[in-house]
């Protein structure tokens, strides 16, 4: 196969670019621990409201100072609808659905997760800027999909 010099340069250049992309991706994965939410835990969607893991939704502060938020995404609301968390501390959201697929996206942050019935989604982040954030459902879930929204209030640390 005849390959011209310019073609060779281009091929090596492309390969290098791809390696650079992957390299930076692996560096942030293993160096900074940036991974997509990939929690593996199942739950019976018909029993979420009685399951001890989700029976009481809301915010709890754990002894080590980290914050845990338990929420339901359901047709067409988030429960609780308003979530208050402190700034500057790791917050772990645990979300599931009793009905169809939903999304859990906090606009203006890196929180974005699919919520599927039968599974528990878990995502951890730290909010640095106090203020009010919009939570939206970003996976189509029926006629009320566009009104499925909530509010996150990040309070300045005391």
């Amino acid at each position, binding site marked *: 196969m005849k390959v011209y010099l310019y073609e060779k340069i281009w091929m090596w250049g492309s390969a290098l670019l791809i390696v650079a992309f992957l390299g930076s991706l692996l560096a942030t*994965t293993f160096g900074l621990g940036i991974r997509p939410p*990939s*929690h593996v835990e199942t739950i019976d969607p018909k029993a979420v409201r009685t399951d001890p893991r989700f029976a009481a939704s809301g915010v709890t502060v754990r002894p080590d100072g980290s914050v845990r938020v338990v929420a339901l995404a359901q047709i067409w609301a988030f429960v609780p609808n308003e979530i208050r968390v402190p700034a500057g501390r790791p917050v772990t959201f645990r979300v599931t659905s009793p009905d169809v*697929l939903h*999304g859990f*996206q906090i606009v203006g942050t890196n929180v974005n997760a699919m919520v599927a019935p039968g599974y528990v989604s878990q995502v951890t982040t730290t909010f640095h800027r106090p203020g009010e954030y919009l939570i939206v459902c970003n996976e189509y879930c029926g006629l009320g999909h566009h009104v499925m929204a909530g509010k996150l209030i990040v309070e300045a640390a005391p």
Partner: protein
Amino acid sequence: MNRAQRLPLAHLWVAFAAFGLASLMAVMQAMSRAEVQLPARTAAIYYLSVTAHGVLTALVFTTFFIMGFGYVIARTALRRPLVGEGVAWASFWIALIGTLLATLVIVLGKASVLYTFYPPLQAHPGFYIGAALLVIGSWGWCWVMVRTYRAWRRDNSGAPAPLAMHGLLATVIVWILATIGVAIEVVVLLIPWSLGITKTVDPILARALFWWFGHPLVYFWLLPAYVAWYTILPREAGGKLFSDPLARVVFVLFIVLSTPVGFHHQFMDPGIPAGWKLFHTVNTFAILFPSFLTAFTVIASLEVAGRMRGGRGLFGWLGKLPWGEPLFTSVVLAMTIFAVGGFSGAVNAGYGMNAMVHNTAWVQGHFHLTVGSAVALTFMGLTYWLLPRLLGRELKFPAFAQVQPWLWFVGMMFFAVANHVTGLLGMPRRVYDPAYFGAAAARAWAPWTAVSAAGGVILFVSAMSFLLVAVGTALWGKRMASPPEIAYAEPLEPVPPRRSLWDRFGLWTVLAVLLVLIAYGLPLFGLLRLERFGSPGFKPF
């Protein structure tokens, strides 16, 4: 019109009808997202419309166009009649009946589940059965393509397939690998569930099977466009194909790599371990390589053409290219848009970056650049090239055919740039109205959704111009005594007379299957071993 042309033409007309209907829905959607209060605007109609638009463009327009184009290539590149015309017609009717059934159910409002139909949203069984028939029809097409190639190979032992056919065979193999996933999803999980025979479905398992199909689907659209870029564009530009052997390598790499990448659509999903998502990510970046090679070969071929036409200097050859030819303009603009779409795609595939854009309007911007332009605009250009050759008529309204690709380009720039921006600002995709009760974040989207709507109107005008030319040519185009022939670009260096490693489809298919078994077999096995709870169906539409 010669009888043999009826088969591809029948496919093309179904594709154009689907495209026309989908464009009409699309402007309405673009306006709805900008909160333009059209008459009869309701959420129910919006989601019905997005379902129809997605199905008609992503599944019907593309599949029918590719099947028709494939038959043209098999017959003209191999210079022999198709093997199994009867099967081809039967497949056409099966696919058409499936399409009509699914469309009817959607229009009746019984299947507003979007073209991704994720359970536990549950459509009327007619939707899933219609989709299955469309796929079964396309398998008939695969059978005819492969049989025709084998018959040709018996008479040309040892010779490599003409490049156009090589690319189409790669398309066929990618499609077969892809549709296994969706066939399992639809036939094993969804049809029995929608008929009430089974009670529940696991939504994450269903999503994994869908995206096993959903990503190679993208290459099923793209490879025929690449065939046009490699084998038709250089000749119409007045030049030669820069490298035939490298093009073969490109198509083979797509066979191997296009399926084991689907988890990059499920980065945000629970239930799938991060390690497997990373494995699919590495494959995803690897598959950028053949597209980079394509960029080089195609641009080099255009330079060859420009210089053969007397162009001089570093960039002087650009001006010598046939910018007045509708095929040329459409394809070159399609390729330009694809370069932009490739970059936003690399962001989507970024394992860590995906969280910023997943399910936002960014994604909608991205795929309108790729399938909605790189592929669709190439197909429109091909139509301007094919119709005179198949119908034996001159193109009617050629001025429209010249302006239409530019309108698409401009409209798409408005539309796609605006959607990328609103996506970064956090606006979700697939929403009827993004007002969110006046939330501050949502107010920031409004100027951009207006730009996107303006782009939608320009795109609609472009789509209608395209249809005007196509229908006008069929009805009123002047008959030609001797229509131009369907011929493919010659390579700069003669093609070697013997098949090489890169022509061994069987071998590469085995490798591809092994990769699929690793990339899907192992994680799905892990998923099936969890204590899983299925979901009953919901119809909140």
